[in-house]
């Protein structure tokens, strides 16, 4: 026996999640709302109850915000969404993607089914859709004759294109039978024809028709002229011109202002869609606000977000033509003005050149020449005058030179000159003498001074000599007495005196060598003896070394 498989909680939970969730995607659930809780985050939590069962549900903020009717407890609703397992709590819940109250919910379901059906029929296909006609002369409007929509459309058209022709097919746009009326209105526009008996000459028939038709005919007369060119360049092949018929309008606009989903429900009916598809006239739809997309919008050849936008779309071509015309006019004006201003410029240039060639110019040059001549003439005249004036002054000078007064003045001036010279000479002489005198005086003074100084010097010398003489005499006397003393002394010291006193001088014969010692002589030597009064010669006999004292 094998052991049982044990799952963890998470394994089990995720197994359930993966099994359950794919099974309940895109489901529709009907039930009664209870336990409604609006979180501050904007998410809405509630339960759906029915037959004693309960289903948790959550409506996230983004979806909750787009609810037209707020949910409240006790409401029976149809919710569309998916089943989601929430592992942290082990619970399952419905995540609501769309929710509507029961009546609405059923309509929603019906609408979805219808959309699917029509789509399969190919009514929404682009290839099926017709282009906007051109030109749009008459506009058929399927709407309420009393609503603000009609006014909006009239306003937009008036503003953008001024003139237009609008035929309103009045219908109810909501409530019982509205859809039928709308569908029928589309059919009626397709049925109504305007007959143009003779499109080239209509005038004759006018009297028999009532006024509104006459007006229409007049209108179509204009349109016809254009159609002649735009649609029928050649006459119709059968040549039956009298039988031409036109649809009364060129385009049908189905429109309605904004409202709730129930209000717009007429435009979600199959009958309306069928009428639109069948219509051979192009259809523009403008139902509700931009966010409301009805089946009529899907089927229409052109969908405008709002009635005003529809008016703009259908007036677009005319509006552009108007703009184009305006541009043409502007351009033509500009070109013409350029041309005109060019011409003007050319003209003014001519005028300038003409004024250059004006005879006045010539006269002016003459005037100028005349002025020049005058100036030159004046200058010459002036020069001549000046010359004469100079000459005159020269002559005047010369004449004045020869006048007697001049001579007198000359001699007078000579006299004064001489006088002056004489005076100068005398003065010079005196000065010379003075100089000489002072010179002599100086020399005399000098000589006197020399002499005087000489005398003075001599006097000085005489005195000195006298004084010197006496001093010399004194010295001489002193010296004389000294001399006498010395000479007497000398007399006493004279060798003669010694000899006189008895002393003798012994010398060797024939020499003057004085014998001063016994040693100097030998026995038998000749000797000379000198005494005071003469000399004696002898020979030495003996020698004795005996001292005298």
């Amino acid at each position, binding site marked *: 026996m094998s052991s049982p498989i044990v799952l963890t909680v998470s394994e089990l939970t995720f197994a359930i999640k993966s099994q359950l969730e794919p099974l309940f995607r895109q489901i529709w659930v009907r039930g009664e709302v209870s336990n409604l809780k609006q979180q501050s985050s904007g998410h809405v939590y509630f339960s759906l109850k029915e037959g004693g069962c309960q289903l948790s549900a959550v409506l996230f903020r983004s979806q909750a915000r787009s609810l037209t009717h707020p949910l409240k407890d006790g409401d029976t609703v149809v919710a569309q969404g998916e089943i989601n397992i929430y592992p942290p709590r082990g619970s399952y819940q419905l995540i609501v993607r769309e929710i509507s109250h029961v009546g609405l919910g059923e309509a929603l379901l019906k609408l979805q089914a219808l959309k699917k059906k029509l789509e399969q029929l190919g009514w929404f296909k682009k290839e099926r859709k017709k282009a906007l006609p051109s030109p749009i002369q008459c506009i058929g409007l399927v709407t309420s004759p009393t609503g603000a929509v009609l006014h909006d459309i*009239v306003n937009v058209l008036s503003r953008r*294109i001024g003139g237009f022709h609008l035929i309103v*097919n009045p219908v109810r746009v909501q409530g019982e039978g509205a859809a039928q009326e709308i569908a029928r209105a589309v059919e009626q526009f397709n049925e109504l024809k305007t*007959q143009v008996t003779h499109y080239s000459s209509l005038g004759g028939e006018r009297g028999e028709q009532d006024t509104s*038709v006459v007006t229409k005919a007049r209108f179509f007369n204009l349109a016809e002229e254009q159609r002649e060119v735009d649609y029928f360049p050649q006459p119709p092949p059968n040549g039956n011109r009298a039988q031409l018929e036109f649809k009364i309008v060129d385009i049908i606009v189905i429109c309605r202002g904004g409202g709730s989903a129930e209000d717009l429900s007429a435009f979600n009916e199959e009958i309306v869609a069928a009428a639109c598809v069948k219509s051979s006239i192009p259809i523009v739809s403008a139902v509700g606000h931009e966010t409301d997309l009805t089946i009529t919008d899907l089927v229409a050849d052109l969908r405008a977000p709002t009635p005003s936008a529809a008016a703009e779309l259908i007036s677009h071509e005319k509006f552009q033509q108007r703009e184009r015309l305006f541009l*043409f*006019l502007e351009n*033509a004006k500009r*070109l013409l003005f350029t041309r005109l201003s060019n011409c003007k410029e050319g003209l003014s240039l001519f005028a300038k050149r003409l004024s250059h060639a004006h005879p006045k110019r010539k006269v002016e040059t003459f005037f100028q020449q005349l002025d020049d001549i005058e100036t030159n003439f004046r200058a010459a005249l002036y020069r001549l005058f000046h010359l004469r004036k100079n000459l005159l002054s020269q002559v005047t000078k010369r004449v004045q030179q020869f006048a007697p007064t001049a001579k007198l003045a000359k001699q007078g001036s000579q006299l004064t000159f001489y006088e002056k010279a004489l005076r100068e000479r005398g003065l010079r002489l005196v000065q010379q003498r003075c100089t000489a005198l002072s010179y002599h005086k100086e020399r005399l003074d000098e000589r006197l001074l020399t002499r005087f100084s000489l005398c003075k010097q001599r006097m000085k010398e005489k005195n000195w000599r006298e004084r010197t003489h006496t001093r010399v005499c004194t010295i001489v006397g002193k010296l004389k007495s000294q001399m006498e003393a010395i000479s007497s002394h000398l007399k006493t010291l004279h060798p003669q005196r010694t000899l006189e006193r008895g002393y003798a001088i012994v010398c060797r014969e024939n020499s003057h060598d004085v014998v001063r010692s016994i040693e100097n002589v030998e026995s038998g030597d000749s000797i000379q003896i000198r005494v005071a009064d003469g000399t004696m010669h002898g020979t030495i006999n003996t020698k004795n070394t005996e001292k005298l004292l």
Partner: protein
Amino acid sequence: MTSKKLSFEQAFQRLEAILERLNAQDITLEESLRLFEEANALIVLCHQQLHDAEKRIEILTKNREGEIEQTASKAPKTTLMDIGE
């Protein structure tokens, strides 16, 4: 060709041609004035066709069955709507 019988497109073509001619160098003053006159007339005419067309809003008259009432000549009966401007 009188401008009266021209279609819109033809009128525009003619206007283009006039502009081209006006732009040319060799154009005489006389011709340019004449062309401008013509262009002006064309523009006025087109303008009239575009805008001076009678502004007309009719509301179809319906009987109780919701069918449109018609005159003897099978033209629809309408009432004119007053445009409060």
